[in-house]
């Protein structure tokens, strides 16, 4: 194990997989010379050359389109979109092609590709550059979607995503790039896609979270422990497919749930997860499931007002207290 940042863990995953498999290539806007807008591709062009690490024109739809073509052509491309917000330009390629080609082609081709996209709010980047669009991708069958919370998961999930034969959308939280944690050095360390992880064990209430929300949930759980409330923090890690088994096992242990989502509340992933909990665990639930969500507004530019729009430790603590008092 060695301590490193979420950014360096992602970078290491890319390097290890490129060393391991010559069909892994990386392309996107500013990924080569500039080494990525968030420096995740640092050192790649120096080690692997311009043929494997390519800067592309600013054409998000076609960056995803050529990634699909190259994956059908025998490569394992990893595309970077500068942020998830620009994925909206590529939604036709993502939804109409990436997610469906395997099915429409009768399984004659796999799509072993990854599209990485930084996302999330909290950097005072205003309405069009602070979005949490994870639910958009979850809705569409045929896509894998992962969103790590820790450096170790960032490394292990990216390596698994590159090796997976399904198309994988890999979200990275912009506010986590500098966060640090212990990361296994083993180049065969993989985190399975579709498996959640209990990041803190507890027995009175489960906080279901992902990415930066997991970090906040752990802070909330720490505070709540001081007040005598024992929280289990379940980090989803993969949003598609969702780990029903892991979620239900935790709820069956605690009997209460708070789902934390950074995205908008309406049709958010919290609604989907709450519904699954009600479908599967209604018999043992001791209180209605609570959701903590982003507010249903375009993100304000003002730093102080933006804070109100995104779940915080305090709002999670509040929701846990409500669910602890809640009854049917």
């Amino acid at each position, binding site marked *: 194990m060695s301590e490193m940042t979420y950014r360096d863990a992602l970078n290491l995953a890319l390097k290890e997989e490129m060393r391991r498999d010559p069909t892994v290539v990386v392309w996107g806007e500013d990924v080569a010379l500039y080494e990525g807008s968030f420096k995740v591709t640092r050192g790649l062009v120096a080690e692997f050359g311009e043929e494997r690490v390519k800067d592309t024109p600013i054409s998000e739809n076609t960056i995803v389109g050529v990634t699909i073509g190259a994956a059908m052509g025998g490569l394992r491309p990893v595309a970077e979109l500068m942020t998830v917000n620009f994925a909206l330009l590529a939604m036709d390629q993502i939804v109409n092609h990436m997610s469906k080609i395997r099915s429409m082609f009768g399984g004659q081709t796999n799509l072993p590709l990854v599209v990485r996209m930084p996302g999330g709010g909290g950097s005072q980047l205003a309405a069009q550059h602070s979005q949490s669009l994870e639910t958009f991708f979850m809705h569409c*069958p045929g896509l894998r979607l992962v969103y790590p919370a820790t450096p170790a998961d960032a490394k292990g999930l990216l390596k698994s995503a590159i090796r997976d034969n399904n198309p994988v959308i890999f979200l990275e939280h912009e506010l986590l790039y500098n966060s640090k944690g212990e990361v296994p050095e083993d180049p065969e360390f993989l985190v399975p896609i579709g498996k959640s992880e209990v990041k803190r064990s507890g027995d009175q209430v489960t906080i279901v979270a992902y990415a930066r929300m997991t970090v906040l949930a752990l802070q909330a759980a720490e505070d709540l422990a001081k007040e005598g409330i024992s929280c289990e923090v379940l980090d989803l890690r993969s949003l598609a497919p969702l780990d029903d088994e892991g979620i239900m096992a935790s709820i069956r242990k605690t009997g209460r749930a708070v789902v934390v989502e950074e995205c908008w509340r309406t049709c958010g992933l919290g609604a989907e997860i709450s519904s699954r909990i009600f479908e599967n665990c209604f018999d043992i639930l001791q209180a209605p499931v609570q959701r903590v969500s982003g507010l249903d507004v375009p993100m304000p530019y003002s730093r102080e007002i933006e804070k109100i729009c995104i779940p915080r430790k305090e709002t999670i603590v509040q929701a846990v207290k409500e669910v602890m008092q809640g009854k049917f």
Partner: protein
Amino acid sequence: MPNEVIAEFKVTRMSILDENGIADVALMPELSHEEIRKMYELMLLARAFDQRALALQREGRLGTYPPIMGQEAAQVGSAMAIKPADWVFPSFRETGVHLSLGYPIAQIFQYWSGDERGQLTPDNLNIFPFCVSVGTHIPHAVGAAMAARYRRDPIAVVAYFGDGATSKGDFHEGFNMAGVFRLPVVFICQNNQWAISIPVKEQTAAASLAQKAVAYGFEGIQVDGNDVFAVYCATRNALEKARGNGGPTFIECLTYRVADHTTADDAGRYRSSEEVAAWRARDPILRLERFMAAQGFWSEDYGREARSRASASMDEAVHEMEGFPPPAAADMFEHACASLSPRQTRQQEGL
């Protein structure tokens, strides 16, 4: 100080065989009578497929079908220049290309009958399933060319699309990337003059579609799309250039969609019968017949016999298609992902 000329360009049109069936000997490609007969018979096969598909659709045995009538030279001529190792990304109106490359006829009928298994491409063919979305496969072809280049595979990639696709972002972004990376890809546009009800002059203010390639830094050429020899030559030249690392080419085949956009369309509502009649007179099959007759290797008897063989192939293919068992509902999950999610597995089991 006068403005400096920083770029000048010209766009040319290639034609070899005129409407009367007279070929420009100097430009004529080296093709044996046997090869020309093959082109002719493939064009007849394409037309026979079209006529049979329209009849079957009217009987309710096929779904919505996009006819190719009038575009046989553009399709057969270009496909004849493609080598088996090259990769082809077709749109949905390229039946003549499929037939020329040897795609099983029964499977093409199977697809249009509503059975996606018709798109399961035989192992010896490098044809990707055709793209019904307009122009969205252009980036896939560009990506496949990137992969071919990376694998040091000396092939070319061909993408087919229509005039309507030249207004799509995928076309412009894909062309741009193909130009920037000088990729081994040949773009073939069948400019059949109509994108459903939109004539090409409302699709673009440019004098040609071919010239759009110039802005992306590579060659664009217009060819008479009803002249099978010109289409063949232009495609062969472009493919050789691509395989030899000379970068992409855009070929605009000037042709005409004689029939409706699809069986769900009535083109009589938006275009004149005079216009259609004028293009019928430029029929690519008639033109080639005239050439072959003048050269002494076409006769009424041969023409009749070749048509009859094409029709018999359709009888056989339709019979084969009707013997395919219907797809099973559970199969829809089979290839949805490389591995199903637990929920998908439950849904599949619950059918």
